[in-house]
């Protein structure tokens, strides 16, 4: 879904750019609160790397085409929504500049679609689901999967709206909307599976590093291993 340069007209790019910059502006101070302690920096960098690397892996969706992970829900659960948005933004900037994957002038659009929307939707659903699931090891991966599953078609729907407003050519909106959303439901399944697997893997080895685990129902954060407690007390 990486939108290249020239895909949308200039006014659309400018407006999405302003929105994305605003979202990052909001996320910056919040992220500082999410990531207390010097030990967080490597984890945040690692999550950005993980998302970058998994975005390069394409999984088959059918009809000979493939999709790739977007990672909004995943990032939000691993390091918190605001920090997660920063991670995805960095991934998109690096992809645009180093690999021309997604346009430079379309950065705002891409951050809005793949960062802000997937993080907000993914994290919101995660919080809803985690609030009703029992406090088990698997509940965090499952809630992440649900967030990932829905966040992708929502982003695709938003893309269709943007294209209808500022696309290079008029295309029947309904057809585009249905095609994009339907297609991305399939991609969302891949997103859900991969995100859940990754979160489960991290939960198995370093549960203290998973931000979303703080929101499990009954078990309190203080039952988490020392380093979280240590950071929280700082």
């Amino acid at each position, binding site marked *: 879904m990486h939108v290249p340069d020239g895909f949308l007209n200039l006014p659309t790019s400018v407006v999405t750019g302003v929105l994305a910059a605003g979202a990052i502006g909001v996320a910056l101070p919040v992220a500082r609160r999410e990531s207390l302690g010097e030990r967080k920096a490597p984890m945040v960098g690692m999550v950005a790397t993980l998302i970058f690397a998994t975005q390069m892996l394409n999984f088959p969706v059918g009809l000979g085409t493939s999709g790739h992970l977007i990672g909004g829900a995943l990032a939000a659960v691993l390091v918190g929504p605001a920090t997660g948005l920063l991670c995805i933004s960095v991934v998109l900037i690096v992809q645009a500049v180093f690999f021309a994957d997604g346009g430079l002038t379309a950065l705002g659009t891409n951050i809005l679609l793949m960062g802000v929307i997937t993080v907000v939707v993914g994290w919101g659903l995660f919080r809803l689901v985690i609030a009703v699931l029992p406090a088990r090891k698997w509940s965090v991966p499952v809630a992440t999967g649900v967030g990932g599953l829905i966040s992708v078609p929502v982003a695709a729907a938003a893309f269709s709206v943007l294209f209808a407003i500022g696309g290079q050519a008029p295309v029947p909106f309904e057809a585009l909307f249905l095609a994009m959303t339907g297609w991305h439901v399939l991609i969302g399944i891949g997103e859900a599976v991969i995100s859940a697997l990754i979160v489960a893997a991290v939960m198995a080895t370093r549960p203290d590093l998973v931000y979303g685990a703080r929101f499990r129902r009954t078990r309190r954060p203080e039952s988490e291993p*020392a*380093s979280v407690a240590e950071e929280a007390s*700082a």
Partner: protein
Amino acid sequence: MPAGISIQGLRYAYPDGTPVLDGVDLEVAPGERVAVLGRNGAGKTTLMLHLNGVLMASAGSVRIDGTEISRATVRDIRRRVGLVFQDPDDQLFMPTVAEDVAFGPSNFGSTGEELEARVSAALTAVGLEDRGASSPQRLSLGQRRRAAIATILSMDVDVVVLDEPTSNLDPTARRELSGTLAGLDSTIVVVTHDLPYALELCPRSVILDGGRVVADGATRDLLADAELMRRHGLELPWGFDPSIVDELHS
């Protein structure tokens, strides 16, 4: 100016729950040279990582020159305590060896000619004067060990902590290192399995076992006490001339 170290009742457990340090007490006077001995897994590295706040005590305290290490003081402490990690790959991260050696001093405000002089002095001390432009990835492990030591020598700190500095060093570099260290006036703490080296470099040693300091005294006395050594998984290496210990001992 060398600084003293004071560790009191230090406890630490890794996040997975393994308790590793279980009430360590240790006092090191400014300018002293102390060897820390103990079997694999005794917690020596864990203890060293507390000396500059890489790890923070779960209980007890670590003081450098009277200042307790805490979130508030840790930046200042790190200016004063230089730590050579046991694994040189943990220490080297810049694109070239010279940049890596310059990293510490330049963070602490050294620039220009002074910085260059520090870097070249440190590289010369470890025999890497002609490898400054190499990438650390392209050095042999022993050369990386040397580079890791140089990153601390360039820093002019009050306490130098070295975790197994001689591993992978060739015999000449090993001897030259002891000369270099003996020439520093910092307080020096060395973790080593190389007991002759401990004897050569450090008048005093402590043995760590079961998460505590179980012996503390003159290195020659500890090494001469075969029963004590055996109990804590230590022994003089084959071929080492025991009469040296006896002579120093008597």
